[in-house]
Every structure is written in C-alpha cells, then in structure tokens.
C-alpha cells in the first residue's frame, strides 16, 4: 500500500520541477525543458506503482481506497486537510493526466521551436506546464472540497497563463481573461456550494458530505428549506463544474482558449482541466442522486450542450475551434451519463475522449506548426504531404465519431445503453442526433483538411511531415485510442489485474457489468456511419458545392450556426450595455454625489461662510457696540418669547 498511501508524491514531483524551472529555467540549457519532461516521465512511471499497490489492495479485499494526509488549517471550526485519496475514479484520472502530460511535454519540445530555435519564453512555458500538472494531480487526488478548490483555481491560473502565453497578441490576452472570468463565475458558485455543505456537515471531506447527504443531514439549521438546501448546495457545486467543463451557457471561453499554444489545448483544454467538472460531479454523484432534481439538471445541461455545441462545430472553419466545440459537445455526453447515474460510463468516455481528442489536437498542431495555417478552407490535400499526421488524425476522428472497433464507439455505446435504462426516449433520440452531429463535423473537418485539391499553393508547399518528436506522441496516442476501448470488457480488465471491465471496476462495490447489446451497437454504429455519409455527400469534392448550396438556400439559419447562436454577442452586449454603464453611473455617483456634494459642498460652504463672516471683524468700536445692542435685544426677545411673556 505504500504508493497508494503516498500518492502525494505524484503532484510533488512536478511542483518541484516548477520551482526549479521558475528559479533557474532561463539559465539552463534548452530552457530546462528536460526537467519538465523528466518530471512528467517520473509521474507516468510512478503511476504504475500506485496502480499496482491499488490493485493489490483490491485483490486483498481492502477496497482499493487509500487515504493519507495531514491537517493544513486547523482553526476553530475551520479544518482543512491536506489529504489525498486514491480510489478507482482517481486512478482513471491520474492515468489520463500522467499519460497526456508526458505526451504533451515531449511534443512541446518540438512544437515550441522554429527551425530548431526555441520560441521566446520557452522556459516559462515548461515551468507553467509543470505547475499545471502538479495542480491537476492535486485536484484529482484531493480528498476534500477545499483542497480541490485550491487546485481547481490553480489549474485555472495555469490555463490563464498558457492561453495568454503569446501575450503580444491582444486576442490571446483577451481570451485568457475571458477564460478566467467565465470560469470564475462558476467557481463562485462552487465556493458558495462548499460553504453551504460545510455549514450543514461541518466538514469539507467529500466522504463526510456524501454520508451526510445520504443520511439526510444536509439541511439548513432551522430546516426551512428542507431538501431545497441540499439541492441548492448541489446545484451550486454543479455551477462550478459546468463553468470548468464549459457547459452551456459557460462554454464561450473554451473556443477562445484556442489562442494558446496547441499542445496546451491538447492537455488542458481537451484531456484534463476541462474534464475536472465531470470528475467533480462523478466524485459527488451520490449527493447528486439524493438531491431532488439535481440529476435532471445535470442531464438537461449535458444534453443541451452536446446538441448545441455539435451544431456550432459545424459552422467553424478554424481546425482548432472545430475541435474545441467538439470537446464541449463530448463533455455534454459525459454529463448526460452522470445525469442518469452511470459514473463508470462517464469516466470511461472521459478516458477514451482524453486520448483521441489529445491526439486530434496534437495532430492539428502538427499541421499548424508546418503550414502556419489553421483555417481548414485554406488547407486541403494534406493527406499525401503529411501521411503520419493524417493517419493518426483520421483514426482519432473515426474514434470520436463512434465507429467500431475504436474506443469512442465503446464509450459512446455505453452512454446510450445507460441512457436507455435511465432516461426517457426523447433524451436517447436527442443524444442520437448529437452523436450523428459528431460524426458529421469530424468527417467534414477531415474531408476539407486532408482531401480534395490543395487550396493555397504556399500553404501546401510548406506542408511536410513534422519532426519525430512531434509524431511519436501522435502514434502513441493513436495506439491508446485503439486499446482503451477494450477495457469495456470484463475479460480484458481481468487480464490486466482489474476486478473486471471499467464499469465493474469503478463501481465495484456494486458491480455493474458491461451491457453490450448488439441492437444498440448496430444502431449507434449506423448513426455514426450516416453522419460520415452525410458529410461525404455535402463536402466531398468541388469545394463542398452541395454544402454551399445548402447555405445559400437558408442563409439566415447558416448565419445563426456560424455565429454560434450569438452567445458571445449576448454576453458582450450584457457587459457593454449593462455592467459597464452601471459601473459608470456608480462611479459618477461616487464622484459627484458622495464626494463633491456630500463632502466638498459642506467644506466649500464652510469656507464661503468664513469668507463672509470675517467682515464683521472690522476693528471699529461703533460696529461692535451696534452688534452688542442687537445681540442683547435678540437674546432678550428670545427669553421673553420662551417664557411665554
């Protein structure tokens, strides 16, 4: 049990790497990138030690859950543990984080160079990357909500710093701020939520909160809200999850986050940080299930997101933005699975999605790095020039679209199976539409990027296969995309020492075996193929003539899709027309009413009064005598009146 109990070593290693890089990075050869890569590699290797000790504990019948930690803040009623937990959900996440982090680290050493020369601030990039890995691992392993919140903000900070890595570009700085402030909106919800839970249970420990919720002890003290208190707290936590995982209506930050370097998009904005929301809900799912209505909100938000983002992805031409909307949509799928209570399924889709989406992003990075072009309409015909990139990209696209036997098929199929069992038919049909859309937008992207004639001569001339250091992670992730899907089967899971397939592993106290139905698989496979076929019909050859015709036929509808349902415009309008004018009015009020009228006016009045009153000091005795007489007369008159004469 040593490694499972000392899992804190995992985040500690990249944290140390960060400190070293921060202090000395710029003086080291190669900007110290080997330190960051080395830390990621160590974490990757140590993960298997943790896994082994975790599996041993399961085999020994100890449940596989290891806790360790010490008090961080212990003050009055306010106790926060620096505590770490290793359980099956955490293991899945640590696997994803350590694998993708290692691949992205390797890839970045090739990507952040041009003609062999590192980009400016190369060392800073790797420093923040290490900090991110440290914060992400802390988030994953944290056993209490407050430590998780600290790490939660930490990954947000790294995301902010990396999105704004090219801070010469105004758009990058703008996007970084947008990402931070939008997720902050959700984070404030999470913050209130965890205070509400703390107030009801006196603890931040996730296990305590779950136990209290199941025992019906999450209530406000006078119990006026009853179950409403539990639902409110739960939904506030979900607000944070939805912000981080870019669910509608918080999704607007993620596509803009593509301003960051592409490997960052692969690591943070596809595989790890954005799934933190899914992870948080998965961890607290027992609470969501007890709180009346909470699961339905999760389901509804997930479904809406899966559909809307799928449609938005269709209207995008920037490769990375298509992938970003696709990520949003797939995260919606995971929330649907959580909404019907299938933790194992959600984590499975998280796992498979992490690998194929990271591969897709890194593939797009390979294209962008070589061609310096990311508008899919100006690419085309890359298949022959970049065979490795193209192959891995296409395989991952097929996996995303959900075509057997790639991993995305298994996980999506599980989501359908779970939804059929846990929600009504309308949900399943809408989800089917979303799955159809995934196949459609991925096929569209693949067709216009890799096939057809080259559109721009200069671009195609630059297109050559990238360095091996960029290609190795692509191939590795593609292999994983092939393999992880089979963990759905109990036999495969047992062969690797797990107690069964991923579903029975994650929920092994209450085994929930893989339910593979031929009928469902046939239907979902057909839906995906239908999506491919539709894309082929509309976009294959002749500059997507049929798609253009469709657009000309319904220009208004096309405009709505291309403008992403005007979400960004609505927010901008709210900020420009409501927040800033309000701030202007309040600022004016502060200056004019509070300061000039409230403070300066009495001061001025005093000064003017003094200015005029000084004229009674004339220095002439007759004046003083007159004043004296007037004063005595007034006083006498007053006394007369007061005494009632």
């Amino acid at each position: 049990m040593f490694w499972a109990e000392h899992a804190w070593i995992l985040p500690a290693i990249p944290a140390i790497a960060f400190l070293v890089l921060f202090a000395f990075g710029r003086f080291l050869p190669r900007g110290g990138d080997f330190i960051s890569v080395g830390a990621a590699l160590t974490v990757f290797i140590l993960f298997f030690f943790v896994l082994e000790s975790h599996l041993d504990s399961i085999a020994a019948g100890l449940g596989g859950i290891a806790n360790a930690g010490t008090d961080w803040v212990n003050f009055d009623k306010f106790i926060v543990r620096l505590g770490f937990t290793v359980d099956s959900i955490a293991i899945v996440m640590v696997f994803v984080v350590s694998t993708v982090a290692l691949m992205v680290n390797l890839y970045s050493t090739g990507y952040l160079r041009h003609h062999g020369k590192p980009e400016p601030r190369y060392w800073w990039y790797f420093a923040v990357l290490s900090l991110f890995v440290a914060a992400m691992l802390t988030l994953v392993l944290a056993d209490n909500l407050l430590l998780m919140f600290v790490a939660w903000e930490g990954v947000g900070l790294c995301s902010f710093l990396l999105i704004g890595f090219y801070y010469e570009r105004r758009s990058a700085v703008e996007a970084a701020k947008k990402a931070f402030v939008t997720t902050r909106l959700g984070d404030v919800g999470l913050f209130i939520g965890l205070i509400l839970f703390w107030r009801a249970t006196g603890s931040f420990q996730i296990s305590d909160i779950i136990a209290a919720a199941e025992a019906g002890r999450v209530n406000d003290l006078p119990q006026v809200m009853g179950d409403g208190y539990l639902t409110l707290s739960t939904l506030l936590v979900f607000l944070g999850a939805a912000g981080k995982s870019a669910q509608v209506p918080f999704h607007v930050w993620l596509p803009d986050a593509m301003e960051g370097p592409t490997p960052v998009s692969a690591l943070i904005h596809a595989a790890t940080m954005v799934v933190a929301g899914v992870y948080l809900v998965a961890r607290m799912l027992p609470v969501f299930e007890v709180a009346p209505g909470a699961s339905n909100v999760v389901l509804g938000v997930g479904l809406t997101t899966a559909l809307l983002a799928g449609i938005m992805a269709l209207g995008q031409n920037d490769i990375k933005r298509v992938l970003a909307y696709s990520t949003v949509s797939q995260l919606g799928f995971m929330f649907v699975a959580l909404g019907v209570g299938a933790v194992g399924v959600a984590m499975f889709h998280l796992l498979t999605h992490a690998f194929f989406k990271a591969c897709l992003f890194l593939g797009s990075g390979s294209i962008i790095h070589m061609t310096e072009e990311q508008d899919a309409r100006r690419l085309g015909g890359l298949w022959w020039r970049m065979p490795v990139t193209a192959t891995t990209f296409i395989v991952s696209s097929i996996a995303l679209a959900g075509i057997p036997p790639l991993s995305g098929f298994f996980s999506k199929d599980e989501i359908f199976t779970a939804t059929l069992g846990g929600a009504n038919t309308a949900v399943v049909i809408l989800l089917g539409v979303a799955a159809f859309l995934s196949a459609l937008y991925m096929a569209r992207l693949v067709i216009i990027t890799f096939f057809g004639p080259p559109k721009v001569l200069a671009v195609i001339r630059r297109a050559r296969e990238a360095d091996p250091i960029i290609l190795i992670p692509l191939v590795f992730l593609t292999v994983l995309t092939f393999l992880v899907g089979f963990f759905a089967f109990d036999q495969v899971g047992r062969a690797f020492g797990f107690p069964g397939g991923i579903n029975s592993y994650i929920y092994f106290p209450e085994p929930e075996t893989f339910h593979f139905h031929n009928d469902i698989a046939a239907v979902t496979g057909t839906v995906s193929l239908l999506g491919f076929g539709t894309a082929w019909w509309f976009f294959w050859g002749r500059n997507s003539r049929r798609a253009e015709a469709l657009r000309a036929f319904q220009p208004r509808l096309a405009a709505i899709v291309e403008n992403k349902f005007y979400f960004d415009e609505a927010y901008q309008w709210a900020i420009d027309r409501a927040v800033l004018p309000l701030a202007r009015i309040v600022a004016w009020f502060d200056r004019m009413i509070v300061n000039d009228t409230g403070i300066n006016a009495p001061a001025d009045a005093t000064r003017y009064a003094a200015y005029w009153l000084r004229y009674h000091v004339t220095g002439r005795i007759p004046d003083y005598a007159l004043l004296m007489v007037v004063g005595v007369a007034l006083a006498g008159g007053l006394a007369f009146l007061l005494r009632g004469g």
Partner: protein
Amino acid sequence: MDPSFPVLSLLIFLPLGGALLIALLPGKHTPTHAFWQNTPGTVQQQARWIALGTSLAALIIALVMFIIFDRNADGFQFVDEFAWIDAQSLGFNIGYAFGVDGLSMPLVLLTGVLSVVAVLVSWKIDLRPKEYFVWLLVLETSVLGVFTALDLIFFFLFWELELIPMFLLISIWGSGNRNYSAMKFVLYTVFGSAFMLAGFLVLGSAADTFDIRELRGADLGAAILPAQAIFSFILIAFAIKLPVFPLHTWLPDAHTDAPTAVSVLLAGVLLKMGGYGILRLLFTLMPEVGADADLALAIIGAVSIVYGAIVTIRQTDLKRLIAYSSVSHMGFVLLGVSALGVTGMSGAALQLVTHGLITGMLFVMVGLIYDRTHTRQIGEMRGLIHYMPLLGAGLVFAGLAGLGLPALAGFVAEITIFLGAFGQHEAPVLVSMLGVLLAAGYILWALQRSIFGPRDEKWAGLTDSNHWTEFAAIGALTALIILLGVYPRLVMDLLEQGVTPIVEQIEAVAAMGGGGG
C-alpha cells in the same frame, strides 16, 4: 530576555530616534558648514541609510518579539507602563501603557515589514531627502504607537500624530492635486477624531480610567451618554479610517497623489488602524452594543465590498483603481467582524494583514513602473511587460493575490471571513461574493489593458527593475504573500489567541441576556 526590559518602548521610539538623527545631519542649508562639507548628494545617502538601518532594526525587534511571543498566555505581553498623569483626586489618571497581544503582534510586524519596504522604494527620492525620511520614520512611530497603546489617551495621541507626517509627505512629495488631497485627508480624519475623542472622554470619565485593560467590562452606567452613542462616535473615526462607504472618498485622492512609499504605508498599515480599532476598542469595551450592531455592520460591509468593486471597474488611473479596490477589500473586515465569532473575527484580522501585504505590493509595483513611464493611465501603458518582464510579473502576481487566488494570502482571509460570517448573515455574505467575482474582472481587465499587448516602441528605452532595493522590496512581499497563503497558521494562531477574549466577552454578554447597555 529580561522581562523588565522595555523592548516595546524601544521599538516604538526607535524610528523617532532615527528621525531625530537624520534631522540633525548637517545638510546643505546649515548656516555653518562642517569641515566635511556635506553636499546634497551625501545628505541623501546618509538620510536613506539611517532610515533603512532604523527601520530594519525596528523590524528585527518586532520579529524577535513575534518569535518569543508566548502563544499560550492570556492578555498583553511586553507591557511597559508607568503612571504618567496620576490625578486621582481630580478624577482622572493617564497611564503610559503599551503592550501587545495576539491581535496587535502581527500588525506590529506588518508595520515593521512595510516600513522597510517604504524606505526601500524611496531610495531615489532626491527632493529634500532629509525631511522626507524624517517624516517617514515619524509615521512609523505613530503607527506602532496606535497598534500597541493600552491607554485611550495615548491611542488618541498617536492616532493624531500620524496626521502630521502624512500631510507633509503628501503635500510636498506628492503629485497631481496633492494639496487638495493632503488637506482632505487631514480634515476628514480630524473630523472623525473629534468624535472619537469625545467618545473616549465620556468613557474615561464614566469608568475613572483610560486604561483599556481596566475599561474592559467596566460599568458604563455612569456615562453621560448612552453606550450606543459612544459606540457610534468612536465608530465614525474608525469607519473613516477603514474606510467604508460613504466615508471613503478621501482615500482615492490621497492614494493617487501620495508618493509611492506613502501609498504603501497608507494602504498597508494606516487603513488597518481602523479595523484594529474596531476590534480592539469597540468590541472589547462595548461588546453588548457591538453584538447588537452586527447586522448593520454586515450590511455596511457588503455594500462597501460591492460598491467599491463596481466603482473600481471604471477607474483609468492604476493607483486610483487599487485605492477603490481597497474600499472593497476593507468591507470584508467589517463583514468578518459582524460574525461575532472566533472564525469571522480572526478572518477580519487576517484580512488586515494580508491586504496590507498585497495592496502594499500592488502600490510598490505601480510606483516602480510609474518611476519609469511617468504615467499611471491604464490606456497609455500597453505592452509594458515586453520591456519590464520582472515589474510586469510582479504586478500580475500581486493582482492575482488581490483577486483572491488560493494558495496566496488573500484567499485564506476571504474564506475564513465567509465561513465565519455565513452562519450569521447569509444575505450580506452572498452579496459580497459578487465582489469576489468583480475583483477577477477589474484586475484582469486592468492587467490586460495596462501591461500586456503588443510591443510599443515608446517604451523601448526603459529598463526593468535593476536596483537591489527594488529586488529586496518585491522579493520580501512576494515571499510573505506566498508564505501566508500556504501556511496561514503562522499568524492565524496568534490572531485566534487575540480575538478569543473579545468573542468570549461578547458571548458572556449574550448569555446575560444582552444586559449592561
């Protein structure tokens, strides 16, 4: 250390001694030149080195006190006292009495740290350097006196003493509309002080003593004014100092026009005198009135937080922006105090310390940038980070700390206040959360517009931070902000020890059924 050694008096009057030494330096204007013929340059050299030495010595004394402070003992430690005016026959006596407890010790240390930082960032002052450093050190003495006084009259004395150096520092070494700002600052504070003095005199004459230790729990039945009136009188002075809406408008003016070091001290320690006074005097001496006023305080706090944050959004001068954000952040102090519990009050006290460090650092960074660019207008500063990576990074760091990023000092104070106050006043706490959200908005927006963005050739000749004094100031503040964020128990335990007697007293009063009055 020998317990009878007057270490606290030494600490308080050491800066004054340094000031005296600087004042006696033979300067350019001495009628009879001494044989070494001081030139203006060497006067500056000598003045700043003496100032640095004095403030460092004071810091070391404060640090030693902090370390040997007994964390298990009740009451005040390092007490220095003797009867100053003993006129018992006339019905009053005033004692020279100073001491520290868990509440004031961290604030004394904070004053020591920020005074050193203030000297460091004033290193290149060449306008009348002698007088400048004299007043800076007098300011330190007066603040230390306020934080340690155990007698109302001495508290008032040091409270007023602080005005003189502040007035001169702003009106001589300031910028912009400095005479207006200095005058406004003084008049505003004196306005509050008048009420405070009236309150003190009523208190003192009712209880026949001005000693805070004896006044605690004293019967105020003989007072010529109801306790609520005394409470309100004294509260006015502290509310102006803190400041809270609507008594805050002196703050943006004073901050904007003050020189960098004075802004640092103003935001870092002078505002804290208000929060300290509320805890030390109002809630210690009149717990029953305080316990009744909790909801009002929570509401005023929440309004200050949100109002300050909204006004901050529209500011275009970086210093003014930070000043308004201070209004917002000081609202948290009132919110924490209003919880009337150990958690909330310790959070409020911690907020005093952390805000001192964070806002102090923000002013240091803006000041150092201003020294180079000669502008603080956000719109004009674009792209600075390319030419000043270190100063830019420092500003970003301080900004992130200011918006309450976890693992940095501000977050710990904020969450402690929220946790403490939430059980008492749900609605004000929820409204205050809006301030946390807006803080992210205004700070990041300001950073985006001021230091990021494309290179701008007009900054091409400027240098990054390049002097050891600047490194020392930035490094010390950064380290402390991280240290308190990662290991808050360092001062949290002390603050808890300091507020516990106050809370016990409030609870005792509540148990008696709100009696006293």
